[in-house]
């Protein structure tokens, strides 16, 4: 950072996270409110690091049952079978649509896992006060933020398969408990990305004491 470049925080200003209004932080001891929209403002999102950690740990815990438990049960005249998320990907692959199998694999397995690892990496480097590879880290955060919604894919797939395949006794499909945990992973990782504050990436170690007030 050159001499002329300064952060809003060092100038005593904070950007409202809701309406993007720039205003002065008046008191360090009490909560400050945005004059334009009335929401609480602070230099950095409150307890961003702790809250994001809590959310990704919760998501990581849900990730296990989400992948181990079956997400759907299909019944035909021949018999019944229960599929996990990976099982669904394999079925898609075997039915000849490898490109869709790849899309579901990326959306359901790689995106949630990648999001958790990326956010954990960002949290660790921010806690260390690292100032290296800032450009790469902000790009990683933007990717996490942008791509997160696509992990909802499998939830929609199962909802619409279940809604259509109900011609009993010929064929039926029912949701199973795994989908609940999978939905929880999706929601928790989306909240985790929203709770993290990307401005922390650029803060130098000296800024940490300032933002703690």
């Amino acid at each position, binding site marked *: 950072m050159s001499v002329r*470049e300064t952060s*809003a925080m060092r100038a005593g200003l904070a*950007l409202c996270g809701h309406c993007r*209004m720039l205003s*002065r932080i008046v008191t360090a001891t009490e909560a400050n409110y945005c004059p334009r929209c*009335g929401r609480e403002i602070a230099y950095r999102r409150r307890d961003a690091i702790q809250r994001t950690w809590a959310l990704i740990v919760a998501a990581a815990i849900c990730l296990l049952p989400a992948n181990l438990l079956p997400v759907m049960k299909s019944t035909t005249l021949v018999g019944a079978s229960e599929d996990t998320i990976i099982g669904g990907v394999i079925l898609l692959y075997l039915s000849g649509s490898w490109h869709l199998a790849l899309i579901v694999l990326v959306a359901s397995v790689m995106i949630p896992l990648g999001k958790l690892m990326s956010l954990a990496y960002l949290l660790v480097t921010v806690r260390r006060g690292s100032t290296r590879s800032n450009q790469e880290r902000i790009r990683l955060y933007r990717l996490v933020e942008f791509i997160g919604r696509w992990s*909802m894919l499998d939830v*929609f797939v199962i909802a619409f398969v279940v809604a*259509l395949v109900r011609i009993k006794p010929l064929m039926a499909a029912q949701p199973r408990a795994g989908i609940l945990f999978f939905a929880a992973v999706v929601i928790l990782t989306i909240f985790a990305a929203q709770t993290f504050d990307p401005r922390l990436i650029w803060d130098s170690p000296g800024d940490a004491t300032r933002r703690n007030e």
Partner: protein
Amino acid sequence: MSLNRLACPDCDLLQNVPRLPPRARARCRRCGRLLAIDRPRANERALALAIGAAIVFVLANVFPLMGLSVAGREVDTTIMGGAWIMWQEGQRMTAALVAVCAVIAPAAYIGLTIVVLLVSRWRRPAPAWVGELLLWSATAREWAMAEVMMLGILVALVKIADLATVIVGVGMFATGALILLITMIAVHFDPEGIWARTQWVGPAETTPVRDPRRGGS
């Protein structure tokens, strides 16, 4: 922000952005994030698009998305049907999430955007609750996932295609148009233009915008 002094939401760098020529955009000097963009008559276009989206949204939800026919029997589903059957099968949390992302959030986003744009056209300054609704519409936008749902439907169709004949319904085409319109609203909508003509909730409303020191409570 009439003072053109901005802080980057992604890196907090304080910088002065000059008045932009038409259709120009300003990016953060440090991290490259888009800070400001000049779009002539942005919110008029956004209003037209949002009204179009409202009509298409109704069509997408009233008509069946797709149907399935096997051995002379037929089943079809609307968008809400996807959530409703899930609810009946006992997966209520997941059903609620599907309903929010597929129906409730898109409806709220389109509806709130229309209200905000209309009221800020008619009343100057617009009352402070317009700002409140504007914040809600931004939240609704984050949870509106019509495009993810569309891909999900496509995968569901492929999964089912082996079992039975699939019939694509009017709802599917309307959903395609809805995705397009929602994306275009997001491109044109200019929240800063709304804020500029909306009353503030705080006492600083009576002071000039140029003086940021009067902010806070």
